[in-house]
């Protein structure tokens, strides 16, 4: 009895600490958000930003802030959170700390669709802005589905190992197709496609924010509601069946959610990898592995990372995805070395 109460007390304490970490992360998002508003090709002082936000800025200042900077930052917040959540789900259900949305072919599927679109359409600017995100989403979903079904076996459903390996194989195939297609592009089309592939948050206007918002509004609460299922699934197949989880069904649902999250984010933000890997990892180190808290913390750290990377990318004129890779890779290698 006594032992139990001590355990409960320390547990409550730990939980409170974790939640305060989450609040701290949320504050960090706000701070990075504000810094990012100030930084860019044309510097705006915090005072200018404040004035402009409340409608007292010059025309030029409000154009920069409202039409260029803010949508891009808002998209960074959403995309960062989306990738990190998708990564968190994947790491939970595959029990593989190295899982990333790119792993199930989502990034490559979306990229393939974008290249196809660019190759088949003579003029990029003539098409309506919604087309590309939707196509990219379908590409992502299709690739995810292909990976899932190829990894499926009647005897034991989808095993973690097969998912990882099939993901690598499918990605190799898709990138072969992409290379063949890019050879047929003219230089202008090529530059557009390559910039998109490198993950440049290219569609940084309010329309894309509006395209992405509904997805997030549905998916984020859904994923949050599945936190306990994720806790169970991350224990492993045998244990979770023992605990009564409908393993395959829940896993499929969560996988679908991850694909939808990552797919919609890829569609708007371009192929950005590593966020889905690092966000959840940082979060796990900070708050532990209970998904009720972990999911929120992952989303927030994903946002922080992507806003920071995007701000650097704006200053240095390099695609965001490459900045993310430069930050993310060393961390990944470190993880790999110490993973069990």
């Amino acid at each position: 009895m006594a032992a139990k109460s001590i355990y409960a007390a320390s547990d409550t304490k730990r939980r409170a600490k974790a939640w305060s970490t989450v609040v701290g992360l949320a504050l960090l998002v706000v701070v990075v958000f504000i810094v990012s508003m100030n930084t860019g090709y044309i510097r705006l002082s915090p005072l200018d930003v404040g004035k402009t936000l409340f409608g007292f800025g010059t025309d030029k200042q409000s154009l920069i802030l409202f039409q260029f900077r803010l949508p891009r930052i808002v998209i960074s917040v959403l995309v960062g959170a989306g990738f990190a959540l998708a990564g968190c789900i994947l790491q939970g259900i595959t029990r593989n700390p190295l899982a990333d949305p790119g792993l199930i072919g989502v990034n490559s599927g979306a990229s393939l669709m974008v290249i196809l679109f660019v190759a088949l359409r003579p003029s990029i600017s003539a098409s309506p802005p919604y087309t590309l995100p939707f196509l990219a989403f379908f590409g992502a979903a299709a690739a995810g589905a292909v990976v899932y079904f190829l990894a499926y076996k009647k005897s034991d459903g989808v095993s973690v190992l097969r998912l990882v390996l099939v993901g690598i194989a499918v990605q190799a195939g898709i990138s072969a197709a992409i290379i063949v297609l890019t050879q047929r592009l003219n230089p202008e089309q090529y530059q557009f496609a390559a910039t998109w592939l490198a993950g440049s948050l290219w569609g940084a206007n309010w329309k894309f924010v509006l395209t992405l918002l509904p997805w997030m509004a549905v998916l984020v609460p859904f994923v949050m509601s599945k936190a306990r299922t994720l806790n169970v699934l991350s224990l492993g197949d045998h244990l979770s069946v023992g605990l009564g989880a409908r393993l395959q069904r829940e896993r499929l649902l969560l996988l679908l959610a991850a694909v939808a999250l990552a797919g919609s984010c890829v569609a708007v933000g371009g192929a950005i990898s590593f966020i889905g890997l690092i966000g959840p990892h940082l979060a796990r180190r900070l708050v532990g592995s209970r998904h009720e808290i972990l999911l929120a913390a992952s989303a927030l750290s994903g946002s922080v990372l992507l806003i920071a990377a995007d701000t650097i990318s704006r200053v240095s004129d390099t695609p965001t995805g490459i900045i993310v890779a430069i930050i993310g890779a060393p961390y990944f290698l470190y993880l790999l070395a110490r993973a069990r």
Partner: protein
Amino acid sequence: MATHSIGEGAHASAKKLRTRPLAASVILIGGLALLALSMALSISIGAKAIGLSAVWDAVWHFNGDLTDHQIIRSLRMPRTIACALTGAAFAVAGSVMQGMTRNPLADPGLLGINAGAGFMLAICFAFIPHLLFGQLIWMSFAGAAGATALIYGLGSLSRGGLTPVRLALAGSAVSALLLALSEGIALKYRIGQSLDFWLFGGAAGVRWAQVDVILWWIGGGLLAAMLLARYITLLSLGDETAAGIGVRVGWIKLIGAVIILILAGASVSVVGFVSFIGLMVPHITRYLVGVSYRWIVPCSAILGALLFVLADLGARMVRPGSETPVGALIAIIGVPFLLYLARREGREL
């Protein structure tokens, strides 16, 4: 002498391990004949069809006045020879890797070694564009060495070593990183499209100057792999077993790594990224000739060369008049093969 008899003993003691010298000899002789035939075909077929007899003449009785002979000598021969050399190099690099690491998924492409070489080459293209090929190849080696060191380092640093799956993951992440960096450089310096073709493999631009250089490197690498083959067989029984028999595991692995990076680095610097040859060929060869690397290494070399020469020929014939990247063509066979291995969950070996 001592190692020899002990090596034989190890074979005898493990009943499951079998070799098929007969099958291996058939592959060596038949494969060589097929290779010669397909190389001749590859030289004769192209934008301008040239008869096989003219090919024969151009090789043995060269006449500088004939355009056909000029085409064959200056364009098609170096290309075909480069294909054969690099195909053999990739296949042997793959089989040495698979043998040493006992990892069925080991392949210079999958593990990011090709990407390492490619990254260094991208840097060269962007910053020092006028390097001679003889200098460029050193950068390629350096890149391959960097990636190999990374993978080996991870393997030795990580707790409990790298399982096949984790190694594959590590490799795909390392190549993702290096590719992202190469792409960043390519975007910034607008060398993208030219870099891309090369990134996905193609022997179209190969000239004698390059062949002259890689001939020595790849030839030396293949020879060294042959000399090392006996020890690779022992390592493929497991590090502990090999050490117990008296093999200096650390040294053999180091030499093996150097061989791999020379073979892969030299090949990538000429034909770009070609994955899957190093994955598929050793598997097929092992299935055909058994477990002794004294047979696997030479047979892999021949089958790899054959595969690449034929793939290059196919790449020219898919859409006559333009080149399909040969790496994409190989991926058509390679991806299903990898899927097959994936569904077996990387077992075997």
